[in-house]
């Protein structure tokens, strides 16, 4: 009985213990194609702000944007396109106009190198490809671009029965990597990640086949006065961060903010 009472008291104590509040904190909501590139970029930024509590949450751009609209405590939003960042700004959820930070690239990828080197039309029709992974076009920019690319090449009808949808682009990559899908249209930045280094082969999808992946970021309205959020935006625009992003296949955004 005494043990039971002590356990109950312990439970109560654990329940009431608050999450340690810190003066300087930053929570970044980032598109899944940044999963490995951003982790690397963050290393230098974390070192510069060792006293701050910095967290990164990954997901599809559409899902993260919806969460921000529903009050999620994110300070900076890194979208994989410009549309989701623009819409947040238009509807008053951003502290300022979106800034372009990189251009993403879509690639056709397979862990079987002989498949990964095929032209798209042959790849989607190959009998060895029973399942073809893309990100969910409803809320993942890479998924939208994959649909556009497949349609523009007249491959939509051929591929449709084979399609499987990742909840975000990292999950689509995971489907291919585990062999659950034999090929897919995914982010170059993930295929170049050390976790996958050199698995299979990939073929770039020409940008002319889809609208560009103009990856844009905004500081959210709630973080308007968060100096760390603005410092992070500046960090991501620094030459060092740009160089890291370039190693993961991102193209530079061009002439400053658009």
């Amino acid at each position, binding site marked *: 009985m005494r043990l039971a009472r002590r356990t*109950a008291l312990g*439970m*109560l104590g*654990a*329940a009431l*213990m608050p*999450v340690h509040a810190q003066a300087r904190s930053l*929570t970044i909501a980032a598109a*899944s194609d940044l*999963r*490995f590139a951003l982790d690397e970029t963050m290393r230098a930024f974390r070192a510069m702000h060792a006293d701050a*509590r910095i*967290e990164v*949450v*990954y*997901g599809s751009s559409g899902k993260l944007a919806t*969460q921000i609209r*529903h*009050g*999620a*405590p994110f300070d900076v939003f890194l979208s994989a396109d410009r549309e989701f960042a623009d819409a947040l700004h238009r509807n008053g959820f951003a502290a300022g106009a979106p800034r372009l930070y990189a251009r993403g690239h879509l690639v056709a990828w397979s862990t079987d190198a002989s498949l990964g080197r095929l032209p798209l039309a042959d790849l989607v029709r190959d009998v060895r490809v029973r399942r073809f992974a893309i990100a969910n076009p409803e809320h993942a920019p890479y998924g939208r671009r994959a649909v556009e690319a497949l349609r523009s090449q007249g491959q939509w009808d051929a591929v449709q029965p084979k399609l499987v949808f990742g909840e*975000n682009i*990292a*999950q689509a*990559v*995971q489907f291919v*990597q585990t062999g659950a899908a034999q090929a897919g249209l995914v982010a170059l930045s993930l295929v170049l*990640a050390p*976790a*996958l280094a050199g698995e299979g082969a990939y073929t770039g999808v020409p940008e002319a086949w889809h609208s560009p992946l103009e990856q844009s970021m905004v500081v959210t309205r709630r973080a308007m006065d968060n100096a760390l959020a603005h410092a992070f935006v500046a960090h991501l625009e620094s030459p060092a961060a740009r160089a890291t992003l370039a190693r993961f296949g991102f193209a530079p955004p061009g002439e400053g903010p658009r």
Partner: protein
Amino acid sequence: MSAGDWQAVGVTLRLAATTTLVLLLLGTPLAWWLARTQRSRAATVVDSLVALPLVLPPTVLGFYLLVLLGPQGALGQAFAALGLPPLVFSFWGLVAASVASSLPFMVQPLRDAFAGVGVRMTEVAATLRASPLDAFFSVAVPLSRRGFLSALTLTFAHTVGEFGVVLMVGGNIPGATRVLSIAIYDHAEAMNYAAAHALAGGLLLASFAALLALNLAHRRRTVAPA
């Protein structure tokens, strides 16, 4: 395991403990009322409502909670009007969600335990002039301790295992809403399978140990002479 994983373990245990405590306080009177008024029409309706989380996809519950608790939702606006922080994507939002989704795991074992012995014996105690509260705590509760044991264990374990609701209203925020099940999902997506294995294996063993301990406790009480 990384510091982030231990943090997820901490959040999960804190969530499960808080949810179990809240449900113990809310569920006990509800279960008692259900046990005493089993044949009434109102009790049948409430009984069905309590069981709803067992059959509904967690995403349905999560969706309604998101709509209700969000800044545009009725409860969300009430919270904002009172100057309170928003519930969605916060630890206390997860507590609210877990209380809703684990409700049957607390209420049903208690209701059955109370109906089995508690109610009749309390009536006997009443004839001996015990006050209702006295009869409840000194007769019904000790007689229903197996029910309490089941209810507490199942509620705690179910909250630890919750995924769908947490995914909808949690937002995967480290230190606040990134629980174990979400951390495993995140590791798998990052193709960090070693980390996913460590957490998944640990959770598997812990869940089995909890259920085994529960069954052993039941057996001991059943087999041992009174």
